[in-house]
C-alpha cells in the first residue's frame, strides 16, 4: 500500500499475470508452460512489490 491506496506497481504486475494466464488456452501446447511460468513470475513480482510498498509505508 502507498499512502493508503493500493500499490500501482503491484496492480500492473497482477494485470500482466492475468494477460499471461489468459494466453494459456490460446497458446499452442508447447508454449503453455512458458505462458504459465511468466504468469507465475508476475504474481510473485506483484506480491513482492506490494510487500515492499507496505514496508515502506509503515511508520
Amino acid at each position: 500500500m502507498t499512502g493508503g491506496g493500493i500499490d500501482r506497481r503491484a496492480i500492473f504486475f497482477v494485470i500482466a499475470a492475468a494477460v499471461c494466464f489468459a494466453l494459456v488456452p490460446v497458446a499452442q501446447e508447447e508454449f503453455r508452460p512458458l505462458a504459465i511460468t511468466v504468469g507465475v513470475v508476475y504474481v510473485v513480482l506483484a506480491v513482492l512489490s506490494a510487500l515492499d510498498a507496505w514496508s515502506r509505508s509503515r511508520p
Partner: protein
Amino acid sequence: MTLGVIIVIVVALAFDFTNGFHDAANSIATVVSTRVLSPRYAVAWAAFFNFVAFLVFKTHVASTIAKDVVTQDVLTIGVVFAGLVGAIGWNLVTFYLGLPTSSSHALVGGIAGAAVARAGSHVLQSDGLRKIGVFIVLSPLIGLALGLILTLVIQWAFHKYRKVEKLNRGFRRAQLMSAAAFSLGHGGNDAQKTMGVILAVLIASGHVSKTSGVPLWVVLVAHSAIGLGTLSGGWRIVKTMGSRITRLQPVGGVAAETGAAVTLFFASAHGIPVSTTHTITGAIVGVGASSRLSAVRWGVAGQVVWAWVLTIPGAFAIAAVTSLLVQAAAR
C-alpha cells in the same frame, strides 16, 4: 530466374534494409543513450552482429514466414510483392512519425492482407497465426520480466559496492556485450523474415521445392541487407527508445539488452517471428519499473502500444489494396 522473381527479391531486400534502419536502431538505443558508444560506432557494432547471426541461428523463423502464415498455394509472386509493399509502406509511415512499430508484424499483416484480397480468408493458417499472435503479447511481457529481474539481481549483487564510478565503468563495458547479444538476436530473428519471403517466392516460382530449406545465398544477402540498413541508422526511433520511455544508466542498459536478447534467442530457436521492438521496449519498461512505475513515461509507452495495435491492420489494408491493383493490372 524471371524478371518478376528478381523484382520481388529486390523489394524483399529493400524491406530488410528498411527493417535495418527502422528496427535495428532499437538494438543500439540503450548503448547510445548511456553514452557507451557514439552513434557511429554503435551502428557499426550492431551491423556486424546482425550479419554474423547467420552463423548462430538455424532458419526456423524463415520457414514459419514462408509456410505458416497463409497456405502456400496462394503465395504467387504478385501476392508476395503486394505483401511487401504493405509492410514497407507501413514501415515508412511509422518511421516518418518516429513510432517504434514492428516490421515483423507489418510483414505478417502485409502477407496476410495480400493473400486474403486474392483468395479469401480461408487461406489464413490458424496455427501459425496463433503462434505469432500469442508472442505479440508474450514477448514484451517476457522481456519486461527479465529486464526487471536482472536489474534487481544486479542491484542486490552490488548493493554493498561503494565505488559507483568504477561500477558504472564496468557496466559500460558489459553493455558492449549485451548490445552485441541483442544485435545477434535481432539479426537472427529479423533477417530470417526476409529469407522467409524470398523462400516463399522461390517456391511459388518453382525454383526450389516446397520442402526445401533456405538456400545459403538467400541467408547471406538477407543478413547483408539488414546489416547495411543498420549502418544507415534510424535516429528518430533511437531517441524514442533510448530516452523517452525511461532514462537508462549502464546497469539498466545491460539488464534491458540481456533480457531482450534471451527472449529473442528463445523465439528464434522455436521459429517464432517476434518483434525486436516489442521485446526491447518491454525490457526497458521493466528496468524503469524496477525503481518505480513513475520512472516510465507511460504516455510515450502508450503511444507505442497504439502503434503496435494498428500495425497488422495497417499493413494488411495497404497490402490488400496493392494486391487488388496487381490483380487488376495482370488482367
